[in-house]
C-alpha cells in the first residue's frame, strides 16, 4: 500500500543541514516535510568532532570559510545557547609548529575578523595545567563546544512548531521524476517507512537533497552525477576532560591536531582519508595510534589516559571537478541548482561546509528555493531562538548540579552520564524513539565509562515497563508534541503518568538489548585495552554470565538498525556515531 503526501518543499536528510533547511523554510511560511532514513543526526552530524569553530582553523588556508565561521559562531551562540559550551579555544605553538605560521595566523585572524589574542604562557598553563609545557605561544580565540544531537533535535522541534513535518526512519529509495529526458523534473520521492513498514510517495514542488556524504546517491536517483569527496575522520574520546578549552595546533590543518572538551569527555581528532563509501568504512589501528601520538603533543600523557570510544564520520566535501587529497579540498559549501547545472527542475543539492555553518547553508538554500517558489518572508533563523534557549550556555556541571539540588541520585538510570528515569521516559514519550541508540543521542545514555554496562539493562527494563503499563491502560497511542528543549536537564524532567500506549517499535526488549550492546561494542572495540578492556570484561560478565542475553528468545528479530550495528568492514574497528 502506498500512502501519498503532498508538500511544497521536501527535504531529504536529517543532519544539521537538512533540519536547518526545514526550520528556515517553515519559518518563511513554506509547507515542509523532512525525511531522514534513520534517527536525526545518524549521519556526519552525529559523528563529528564537536567544535563550534571560531574560524581560526581556516584563517590562513580558507579565509572565506573563516569569515563564515566567525559570523555563524556569533549567531549560534544566540540562537542555540544551550547546545553550546563557551569553552574558548587556544591555538598553541608546539616545538613542531614554530616557524612563520604563527605570525601568518595572527595576521590572517585580523584580516578575517576572527578575534585572536596572544596570552601569557603562565595564564595558559594556569587554565590548562596539563598542556605541553614546551608550547611556546598561545593564542586565544572564541571556539566553543557544540552538542549536535541536541542542537539538531531542538532545531527540528522549532521547525515542527513552525509547521514542518519531520519523519525519521523514513528512507528515500527513489525520486519521483516527470517529463522526458532533457526536460526532466523531480516532483518528490518514494520513501520507505522503516518502522511502520509502509511505502510513501511524497510529492513536492521542490526537493532538497541535504544528505551530505550520501548526496551523490540521491542525485543518481535523478540520473545526475555529483562527486562527493568522502573524507573519513577518526576521533577518539578520552574518559574525562583533560582540558576545558578547545586546543588547536597553530599550523596548517592536519591530522590529530584538535582536542575538544565536550560534555564529560575530551575528543582528539581527526584523520582525513578518502573512502569509497560513506556507509562502509572501518577504524584502522594506525588511525587510533596516530590520534594518541598527536594527542600527546598537546597534552603529554594523553595516550596513557583512558579512551572510552572511537568513531568516524565522513566529510561531505564537494568541489566541482576536484580530485586531489581530501584534506586539501575546500571547507566551503556548495549549492547545486540542478535546473541550471543539469537542466533538471525541482531539485537542489546542498553539500559541504561544516556543522558551524549549517544555518547559513540552510539560509542560502532556502533563498534559492524562493527563486522558484516565490519569496514569502525573509530568512528569520539568525534572529530566532530555538526552544530551550533560555537555559543559557551549557556548563559541564549542570547535570551534577541539578541531580544534587533535586536529590535525584536514586533515580539515575545511566549513572556515568547522569540520566534519570524521568528523562528517559520523557524522551520516549515526546520524541520518536526506536532504539536505545536514539536515546543515547537524546540523553547521552550509555556514553560514559561503562559504555552501557549498567544502563542498557535498566533502560530496557524501564522501556518495557512503560509498554507494559501502557498496555494495562489499554488505549491508543498518545504521543504528546515533540518536546526536546529540556531533554537533557534532570531537573526539568519529572515522571509522567504512563500514556495509553507506546510505539510498536519498542515491543521487543530482547532486540533493544542486543542492538544496543552491539552498537556499543562497535565503538569501543577499536580502543579496548587497559582500563576500558577491564570495563568491557565486567560488562561481558554482566550480560553473559549474569543475564545470559545471548540465549534469550526472539534471536531472529531485527530492527532497521541491526544490520548497521553488525556491519563489519573487516577491520578492527567500525564507524561509530557520536560524541
Amino acid at each position, binding site marked *: 500500500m502506498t500512502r501519498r503526501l503532498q508538500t511544497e518543499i521536501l527535504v531529504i536528510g536529517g543532519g544539521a543541514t537538512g533540519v536547518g533547511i526545514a526550520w528556515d523554510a517553515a519559518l518563511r511560511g513554506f509547507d515542509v516535510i523532512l525525511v531522514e532514513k534513520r534517527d536525526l543526526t545518524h549521519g556526519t552530524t552525529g559523528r563529528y568532532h564537536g567544535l563550534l569553530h571560531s574560524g581560526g582553523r581556516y584563517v590562513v588556508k580558507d579565509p572565506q570559510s573563516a569569515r563564515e565561521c566567525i559570523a555563524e559562531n556569533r549567531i549560534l551562540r544566540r540562537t542555540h545557547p544551550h547546545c553550546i559550551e563557551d569553552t574558548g579555544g587556544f591555538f598553541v605553538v608546539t616545538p613542531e609548529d614554530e616557524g612563520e605560521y604563527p605570525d601568518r595566523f595572527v595576521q590572517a585572524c585580523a584580516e578575517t575578523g576572527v578575534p585572536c589574542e596572544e596570552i601569557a604562557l603562565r595564564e595558559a598553563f594556569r587554565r590548562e*595545567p596539563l598542556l605541553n609545557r614546551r608550547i611556546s605561544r598561545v593564542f586565544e580565540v572564541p571556539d566553543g563546544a557544540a552538542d549536535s544531537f541536541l542542537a539538531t533535535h531542538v532545531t527540528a522541534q522549532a521547525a515542527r512548531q513552525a509547521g514542518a513535518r519531520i519523519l525519521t526512519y523514513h528512507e528515500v529509495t527513489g525520486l519521483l521524476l516527470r517529463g522526458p529526458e532533457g526536460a526532466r523534473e523531480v516532483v518528490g520521492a518514494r520513501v520507505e517507512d522503516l518502522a511502520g513498514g509502509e511505502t510513501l510517495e511524497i510529492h513536492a514542488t521542490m526537493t532538497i537533497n541535504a544528505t551530505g556524504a550520501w548526496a551523490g546517491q540521491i542525485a543518481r536517483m535523478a540520473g545526475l552525477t555529483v562527486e562527493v569527496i568522502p573524507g573519513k575522520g577518526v576521533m577518539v574520546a578520552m574518559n574525562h576532560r583533560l582540558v576545558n578549552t578547545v586546543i588547536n595546533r597553530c599550523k596548517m590543518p592536519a591530522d590529530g591536531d584538535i582536542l575538544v572538551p565536550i560534555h564529560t569527555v575530551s575528543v582528539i581528532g581527526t584523520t582525513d582519508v578518502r573512502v569509497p563509501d560513506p556507509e562502509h568504512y572501518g577504524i584502522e589501528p594506525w588511525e587510533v595510534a596516530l590520534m594518541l601520538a598527536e594527542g600527546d603533543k598537546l597534552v603529554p600523557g594523553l595516550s596513557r589516559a583512558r579512551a572510552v570510544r572511537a568513531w568516524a564520520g565522513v566529510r561531505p566535501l564537494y568541489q566541482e571537478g576536484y580530485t586531489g587529497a581530501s584534506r586539501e579540498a575546500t571547507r566551503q559549501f556548495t549549492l547545486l541548482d540542478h535546473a541550471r547545472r543539469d537542466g533538471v527542475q525541482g531539485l537542489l543539492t546542498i553539500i559541504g561546509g561544516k556543522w558551524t555553518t549549517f544555518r547559513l547553508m540552510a539560509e542560502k538554500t532556502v533563498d534559492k528555493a524562493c527563486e522558484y517558489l516565490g519569496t514569502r518572508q525573509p530568512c528569520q533563523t539568525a534572529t530566532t531562538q530555538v526552544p530551550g534557549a533560555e537555559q543559557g550556555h551549557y556548563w559541564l*556541571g549542570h547535570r551534577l548540579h541539578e541531580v544534587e539540588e533535586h536529590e535525584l541520585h536514586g533515580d539515575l538510570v545511566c549513572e556515568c552520564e547522569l540520566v534519570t528515569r524521568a528523562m528517559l521516559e520523557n524522551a520516549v514519550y515526546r520524541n520518536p524513539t526506536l532504539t536505545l541508540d536514539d536515546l543515547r543521542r537524546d540523553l547521552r545514555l550509555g556514553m560514559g565509562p561503562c559504555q552501557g554496562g549498567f544502563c542498557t539493562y535498566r533502560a530496557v527494563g524501564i522501556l518495557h515497563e512503560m509498554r507494559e503499563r501502557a498496555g494495562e491502560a489499554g488505549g491508543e497511542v498518545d504521543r504528546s508534541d515533540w518536546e526536546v528543549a529540556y531533554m537533557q536537564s534532570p531537573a526539568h524532567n519529572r515522571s509522567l503518568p504512563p500514556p495509553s500506549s507506546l510505539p510498536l517499535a519498542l515491543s521487543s526488549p530482547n532486540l533493544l538489548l542486543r542492538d544496543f550492546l552491539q552498537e556499543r561494542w562497535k565503538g569501543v572495540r577499536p580502543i579496548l585495552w587497559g582500563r576500558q578492556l577491564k570495563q568491557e570484561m565486567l560488562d561481558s560478565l554482566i550480560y553473559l554470565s549474569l543475564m545470559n542475553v545471548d540465549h534469550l528468545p526472539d534471536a531472529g528479530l531485527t530492527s532497521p538498525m541491526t544490520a548497521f550495528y553488525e556491519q563489519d568492514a573487516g577491520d578492527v574497528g567500525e564507524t561509530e556515531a557520536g560524541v
Partner: protein
Amino acid sequence: MFTESWQSVGPSLDECIKCNICTAYCPVAAVTDRFPGPKYAGPQAQRFRENGQPHAPDRSVDYCSGCRVCNEVCPTGVKIAELNARARAQMVAEQGIPLRNRLLGRNELLGKLGSLAPRLANLGLHNHVSRVMAEKVVGIAREAPLPRFSEEGTFGSWMKRTAGERLRSDRKVVYFHGCATMYYEPFVGKATVVVLEHLGYEVIVPPQNCCGLPLLSNGEFGAARRYHEGNLHKLVPYAQQGYEIVGSSTSCTLTLKEEAPELLDMFDEESEELKLAVWDVFEWLRERYRQGELPTDFKPLPMVLPYHPPCQYRAHRVGRPAAELLALIPGLDVRVSTARCCGIAGTYGYKREKYQIGMDVGAELFEFVREQGREVRMTACDSETCRWQLEHGTGLPSRHPIEVLAAAYGLYDLERREPRGV
C-alpha cells in the same frame, strides 16, 4: 587551589569500572541519603567538575568522612577519598571556609591557646552553655567528644622537665608527636618515648608543625601547604642524615608520608625524602620485631581488649601492626574489631550536621565492643579522635596501643596514664 596533574589523584578516576563495590561498603552511604556514595561522589562526579567552573556543582561530597573504606575495597585502585577531598577543597576555595571548620582545622593553634590556661580553657569549652553556643554559632555538635586540654602541661614541657632522665644512645630515632599529643594527650608521647628508649633508642624531638591533616580534610589546602612546607624544612634534614621519624598518631604519619604530597601535588624530592623516613610507631616496632630487635620481656596483662584499627591504617596499607604486636603480650586477649569506622573520622563527627551520621557509622564499632562482654574495662585505638569517639560511644576509657605496650613492659601505668618512675 589545587593544580590538576598526571600524578596520582585526578587521573585515578579513569580506573573506575563502576562496579559498585565501594558503594556497597561505604559506612556513610550506608546510614544516610545525604551522601550519594563513593562511586558517585568520587570518580563519577569528578567527570562533571572542572577548573574554573561557574560554581561547585555538588556539595554532598562534603559528607564523605574520609575513612577510606572505599579505597581499600576498590579493586581497581581509584583514589576515591582523595578525589573527594579535592572536590571539597574546590568548594572551599569558592565559598570560603565556615568559621567552625577554620577552628577545627587549627588543632595546633587551638592547642597553643588552650595550653596557656588549660583549666580555664577546659572549663570554657566543656560546660553545657558554651557547647550549646558553640553549636548554634559555629556548628560544632554539642554532644561531640571534644578533647580536653592537658592540665599537666604539654608534652614539650614534660620533655624539657625530664631531659636529664632521657636515654642517650648511639641509636637515635626522631619522634613526631603531633598536636594531640602535644596539647591534649602528653601521656601518649610519654608512653612512646619510654617504649622507644626501652628498645635502646635515644629519642630526638625536633621542632615540628601540625601535619596539616585537619586543614586538608576541611578543604583548606593553602594553609595545609604552608604547614607541610614547614615540616619539610624542619624534618628533612633529619631524614637526610638517615634518621627514621616515627609518629604515634596514625593520621599525622599518613599525612607526612602521602596525604599532603598527594592532595597538594607536592611530588618534589624533599617530600619524597620525608615520606621514606616516616613510620607509624607500630609499623616501625613491627619492623624491629621482624629483625629480632624487639624486647619481649612483657609482663602479663590479663584482660580482654577490644582494639579498633583506625581508618588511617587502611591508607597506610601496612596491615594492622599494633594488633600483631599486642598479640605478643601474655594474658592480653586482643579482640580486633572488624567495624569499618568509628564515625568521627578526624573532625567529621564534630560538625553539627554530621554528628548523628558519625554516631550511626560508629554504631557497628560500639556494638562490637559491647559484644566482647561485661568484663571489658577499656578499648584501644591508635588514633586520638577515634579514641575520643570510642569513649563517647561506649562509655569506656580508651588507650593508644603504645600505652598498652608500655604497660606490658612495666614502664607505664595504664590507669593513671603516666610512666612509672624507674
